[in-house]
């Protein structure tokens, strides 16, 4: 144990460093290495604990045999076919079908561009799918003004099977599992073509269950440890044997360890929902069932752009954005809403709304953003 003396030692005063502290004296008695009987042999570089004498660390366990505990039934062939549908890097599980990159582009523009941007170039807040380069992966924003690495399908993903599997199970976002095999190939072909991935040195025009297996992703060798083949698991074990591989480099210094600079928050992120509060009071009485006519009209005609600020419009609930919008007064905001402003068409394109209705909606949006 450290002995603390009562004398506080003054540390060189600076605006950023605390001025008085305790001083540590004497030697540090190491803590017991183990709380429980642990063996450092786990695959992940950690420890394992034995189950013995009816115990597992601090837990008591029932050490009677569980032999013969056996529930459930065997799956049928059709059940296996329905669910065992993952797609592996060697092509196992690829559906039979084909699709062209041009067809994929049409489908992409209809289903995907709204989130992932034109040509997969991003900009809508959802993941960017194309662009980027292997070279950019070395970018480190360790000092101000540096570029970020650009992790896209073509520049980052090691296996094409991941992409078609992803599209098949999880996309389009709001209607997953709705694509036919031909559509899956078309979309995959388009995204790979846009991402600069080629087969035998040529742009991908069409994909099917056969030529798919010839795709080699540009960043295939960009990941470690190597998990493939009979040595895969042992490679993982070897990786975790060296703590330097994963930054486990902390050391236990107790005194005079050294002083470093203090970095404060530059631009604090305060956009959190619900807003920060530790107050213990009764919640505001929420008007029960009172969804106003204005709110209904807002949901129908305006929310698609104003629910968030993704489209550049002031988001309902964003106090700062609406204070800014209200800078020139309510009349100006009403005028803009009715006649259009910036990227917003007159009445947000909802020309069936009367001027009075638009004003009611604006009022609702302003009131909801205070």
């Amino acid at each position, binding site marked *: 144990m*450290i002995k603390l003396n009562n004398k506080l030692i003054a*540390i060189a005063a600076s605006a950023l460093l*605390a001025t008085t*502290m305790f001083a*540590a004296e004497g030697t540090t008695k190491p*803590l017991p290495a183990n*709380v*429980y009987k642990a063996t*450092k042999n786990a695959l*992940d*570089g*950690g420890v394992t604990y034995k189950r013995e004498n009816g115990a597992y660390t*601090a*837990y008591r*366990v029932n050490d009677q045999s569980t032999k013969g*505990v*056996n529930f459930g039934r065997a*799956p049928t062939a059709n*059940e*296996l076919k329905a*669910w*065992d549908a*993952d797609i592996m*890097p060697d092509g196992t599980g690829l559906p039979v079908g084909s699709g062209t990159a041009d067809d994929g582009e049409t489908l992409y523009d209809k289903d995907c561009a709204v*989130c992932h941007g034109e040509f997969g170039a991003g900009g809508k*807040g959802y993941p960017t799918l194309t662009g980027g380069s292997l*070279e950019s992966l*070395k970018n*480190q924003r360790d000092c101000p003004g540096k570029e970020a*690495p650009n992790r896209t399908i073509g520049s980052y993903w090691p296996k094409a*099977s*991941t992409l078609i599997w992803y599209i098949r199970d*999880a996309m389009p*976002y709001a209607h997953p599992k709705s694509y036919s095999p031909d559509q899956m190939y078309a979309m995959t072909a388009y995204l790979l073509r846009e991402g600069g991935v080629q087969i035998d040195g040529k742009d991908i025009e069409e994909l099917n269950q056969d030529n798919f297996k010839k795709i080699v992703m540009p960043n295939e060798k*960009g990941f*470690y440890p190597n998990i493939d083949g009979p040595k*895969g*698991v042992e490679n993982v074990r070897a990786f975790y044997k060296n703590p*330097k591989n994963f*930054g486990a480099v*902390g050391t*236990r210094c*107790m005194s005079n*360890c050294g002083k470093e*600079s*203090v*970095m*404060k*928050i*530059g*631009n*604090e*992120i*305060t956009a*959190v*929902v*619900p807003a920060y509060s*530790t*107050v213990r009071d009764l919640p505001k009485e929420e008007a029960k069932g009172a969804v106003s006519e204005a709110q209904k009209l807002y949901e129908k005609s305006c929310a698609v752009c104003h629910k*968030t600020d993704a489209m550049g419009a002031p988001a309902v609930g964003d106090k700062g954005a609406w204070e800014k919008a209200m800078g020139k007064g309510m009349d100006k905001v009403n005028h803009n809403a009715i006649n259009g402003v910036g990227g917003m068409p007159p009445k947000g394109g909802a020309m069936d709304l009367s001027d009075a209705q638009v004003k009611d909606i604006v009022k609702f949006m302003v009131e909801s953003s205070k």
Partner: protein
Amino acid sequence: MSNISENNLETTTNKEQSSRRDFFKRTAAYSVSAIAAANLLAPVKLSADDANIINHVEWGTTLGDELNKYPYGIPSAYEHNVVRRTSSLLSSAGDMHAAVSMTPLHELEGIITPNGLHFTRTHNGVAHIDPNKYRLMIHGLVEKPIVLTLEQLKKYPAESRLLFLECPANGAAEWKGPQFNSLQFVKGMMSNAEWTGVRLKTILDEIGLKPTAKWMLAEGSDGSEMSRTVPVEKVLDDAMIVWAQNGEAIRPEQGYPVRLMLPGWEANLCVKWLKRLEFGAEPWYCKEETSKYTALMASGKAIQHYYPLEVNSIITTPCPEKPWSDLKKGDMVEVEGIAWSGHGTITGVDISLDGGNNYVEAKLKGLVLPKSWTRFSYMYKYEGKPLLIQSRAMDDAGFVQPSVTQEKAIMGLEGVYHRNSICTWEVRQDGSVHNVQVRTDNCPK
């Protein structure tokens, strides 16, 4: 009878109290720093009687609710600010289907996260599974593939473990510097609960794992079919299929009715809404397995299959949300926090008050369990002076939590995941608490 005048030394009059509360309401809702300001205003009045003691209180002079008003109980209405929080910056365009919500660590006591406050990460929204239609399939390189209903699964012998679940992106917003002034957003992508289910080994012992099986695919049944590849060695060590969380059914946000539990490993590996386990000889390269949960290094190469969350800790009292603004010089106060390690069990925590130049040992308290939150505590005499307060945890695998500088020297700044370096709270002269980082950067001026 106690001495009334002494007892009243630090009470406030009813009027003063309500005006303070009004101030609090107006300002505190919008910024954490305002909380500190409000606490500064805490009035100290000598010999004023506390109306809450002198007068009858309203709940003492009326009939309470009928006890069966809430067949499933709810927290006090006064606790309505103790909730998970989200930030549109931790989502795609503010879309809360593929996003994360943060546990209010500043309001938690002990090591159990109430189920309604467990952090949540989804890739395609929260799925709602009909338990009557739920099926689990286990197949591939096994002797006897099986399909189980939920009721059949729950007939297997159950064990319970207190385990943390942490998103490997916990703290990822802070690689390049502090951004959130809030414990909830600095470390709230984690929770700790008692999970109950069957050890996977118990099932595999019966259905027979083939010796060629090296990997297990775990697949969810939600819209994203979130899936991951797990080495069989982990499966046979401490992996579980769980159906209960703190004594009740797993919440939909946590994977109702069944999720995989891989103690100490990234929470995304603990696949929710679990549908299928397949055993194979080769890894799968699942959907988020490379595109997301890999850590890009300065070499341009990325770590894949990055499983355990390394030893970590955070001080929860004080913190930006719970400052020391109401302390007086000379007050004895407890510094408290949480430590955890996916590699094993916490063996100790050291505390620094001077930004990492000197440390003292804190005490562990409560249950000390593997791969679970462990509470630590240190009694401190508040001097009313600025502090840079830190905690540094150690585990029984021999790892010590690194400093920011130590970690970034190896991991760079673009890896996103597994950030476990020492956190620093700056306690200012006024007792307010601010998120800062103690670090060395070598940038041209």
